[in-house]
């Protein structure tokens, strides 16, 4: 029986038969492309899971790997290599898209560590369905007022009326919530540092804080989106 040293499982290269761990895109022995590896998005770039990322370095690595993996490089190769190039490049692109965006990166990392985030929101958070149970307590009153104003604005629009006072008030609200979003982002960044540098205990605390912050952030950004849409309509 093979002894498993890492989380990665050793497999034999399809081309040269030399064994390597399955988290690699290319055989270290013969450099041939391999089927999609089993690791996470970070390992695609040879990174350990972390939240503070050097984005320039990430882009550089993305370009370097794209040059080697892209289906354009395998247009005249055999069927298997073409298939793997497609799958590997899809993985690379999915990984890059997720990691280069700070929020997606945070959500992804937390999910890797078992947190449940925003699943039930995906594609379902729709205007006019504000779930009061999810409203952050400190914002309850303001959100209630804002929703009233949004409704008024939509009604006024419907009958073709302009309400300059309401317009100004909504713009103020938008600025305020934009500011709150920035605050959340700053707090998140502070937690990144804790997570990246802390021990297990610090990490688990940071994790909880970030899950809550992401919830708050999602709520705020939906709100800002609604206001922007209503103002722009």
């Amino acid at each position, binding site marked *: 029986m093979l002894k498993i040293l890492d989380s990665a499982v050793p497999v034999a290269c399809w081309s040269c038969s030399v064994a390597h761990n399955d988290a690699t895109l290319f055989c270290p022995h013969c450099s041939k492309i391999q089927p999609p590896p089993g690791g996470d998005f970070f390992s695609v770039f040879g990174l350990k899971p972390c939240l503070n990322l050097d984005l320039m370095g990430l882009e550089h690595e993305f370009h370097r790997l794209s*040059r080697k993996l*892209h289906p*354009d490089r395998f*247009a*005249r190769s055999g069927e298997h290599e073409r298939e793997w190039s*497609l799958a590997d490049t*899809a*993985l690379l692109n999915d990984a890059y898209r997720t990691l280069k965006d700070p929020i997606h990166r945070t959500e992804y990392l937390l999910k890797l560590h078992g947190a449940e985030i925003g699943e039930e929101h995906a*594609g*379902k958070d729709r205007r006019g369905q504000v779930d009061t149970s999810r409203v952050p307590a400190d914002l309850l009153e303001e959100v209630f007022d804002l929703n009233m104003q949004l409704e008024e604005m939509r009604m006024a629009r419907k009958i073709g009326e302009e309400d300059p006072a309401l317009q100004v008030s909504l713009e103020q609200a938008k600025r305020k919530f934009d500011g709150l979003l920035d605050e959340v982002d700053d707090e998140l960044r502070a937690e990144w540092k804790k997570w990246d540098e802390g021990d297990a205990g610090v990490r688990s605390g940071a994790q909880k804080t970030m899950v809550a912050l992401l919830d708050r952030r999602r709520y705020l950004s939906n709100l800002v989106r609604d206001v922007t849409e209503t103002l722009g309509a």
Partner: protein
Amino acid sequence: MAEGRVVGIDLGTTNSLVAYMQGEAPVVIPGVDGSNLVPSVVALDPIPADGSRPTVTVGNSARRVLIETPERVIYSVKRLMGRGLSEVQSELKFFPFQLADDVQEGEVPRIQLGELRFTPPEISAYILRQLKRNAERFFGAPVTQAVITVPAYFNDAQRQATKDAGRMAGLQVLRLVNEPTAAALAYGLDRAKEGTIAVYDLGGGTFDISILKLRDGIFEVQSTNGDTHLGGDDIDNLLLTIALDEIHAEHGVDLRKHPGAVQAVRKAAIEAKIRLSTEAAAQFDIELPNGDRYQREIPRAVFEQLIEPILERTAGPCKQAIADAGITPAQIDEVVMVGGSTRIPAVRQLVDDLFHLSARGKKPHINLNPDEVVALGAAVQADILAGTSKSTEEMLLLDVTPLSLGIEALGGTVARIIQRNSTIPASATEHFTTGVDGQTNVAIHVVQGERELAADCRSLARFDLKGIPPMSAGLPRIEVRFLIDADGILQVSAREQRSGKAAQIEVKPTYGLTDEQVESMILESFDHAEEDFAARLLIEARNEAETILSAVERAPRSPAWAHLTNDERTAIGLARDYLIKAKKTEDSAAIREATLILDHATRRFAELMMEAAVTAAIRGKTMDAAGEELGDELTAPHPMAPAEFK
């Protein structure tokens, strides 16, 4: 190298081109008439006396019969690619061709062309076959692999239809490349360009805007947007409608009842549009059946006012693309202009305004030939794929999917699984389960678009996951992987995780041909091509020679002949004798060269005949009468008209 060359093809709404990489520079391959542009026009010749299947002609010769026999000709077929019945119906309002009368909802619409019926991919396949032949003639060797360009904003069905057309024409389509991205490749090839560029591509029928970052030979698309229903055609139709309405109102003549006359006025409208790009005014002067003349001057200012609503429709996509790229107009270093419609000064002005160019001391980049740059870029991409050339080995194109991919969720809403402007290939994995005990099928509806309700998005396909082991409701866990490949086309795979069984997927594209249908539509001729390629070239060359010779034989009977000078007639005679001699040899290249010489010698004659045909069509002469007056040359399957309206 075991495999042949890979060519790059621009399959355009108005014109199509084929190009290849000659050393370090892409070059367009001319057609048999010496012209780089092959009009995307397909005509069905009359049924031969023996009742065999009529031949299909493509390009200039097909365009010439458009005025004579509009019911046997089809153009702008790209607008119909990958579209459903109702879309095609609304599209056809502006075109002389008609749907086959037995078309059913849910199948790929077929167009009636003379006695026969064709799907849009089949029509496109004829154009592709012509380009393939042009390339084969040029190289003297078979060509079987190609890169074909599509509008960036083409959806899955339109892309699949284009790939199907390639297959029918005997071409292995190595890659579909987005037109603006192809243009960017041609733009960035010969200079060490770095920075952010926008490509504004307003063609005959489609509009695209793409924003790219160029760095170290990597062309990374940041965002793309567009309208697959916006282009020069819309301007032509607008001018045409105005002219027809005015003729009706002022002269009491309803030309709409005469398709040939409509085409003649359309030609005049296109010519007026083109003149207005360089001149201050253009004139319509058309003699009507009742002897009246419709005379109308269109000053450029009036023209610009008329087309403003059309041009304004490009502004929204531009702004959205800039926003999606997460930049401001000031961060765009250059705007590259592509497509024939960007010759219109008002278009350049609009772009200047949209991207704040003058304010930053810049101008739109108009140095590339807007008709050819997409084909040249396709040739660059073909060279990258062939992987055999030093000049492109450092280049790589990273493109994006123009539209979000989603699945219909409960209540008809869309759950987005791949966002628009994601770099492709891109993938997403979703899990599904059953709602009823013992259920063995799960239906999935995939849509493409940005709207919140599935009904407002474009239906892409319905999948049936079959063979799920019977279990209690909610217990099966079916993992479905959606993958958008490098061509922008969706692939789906699935497996049931608890049983480990690969679920069987039955893909039913909402709009599209099945594999079997495509197989049955493969154009007969290319098949046994390769073993007797030289023989085929010789036969083709002789056929072309025969066609033009018989047209020249009949020429003196045409009234247009009398308008030629003695020198012109002598030149035609000499070229004819030369071709007759060449035709007796086995040298296909020599025969083609002689054919080309005769074609050039007869060019003015062809123009004179074309003018006569236009007049005849508007004056409402019957086709037979016009035919008698002109001789039969108009249906001669050889391009004798110039490639461009000048």
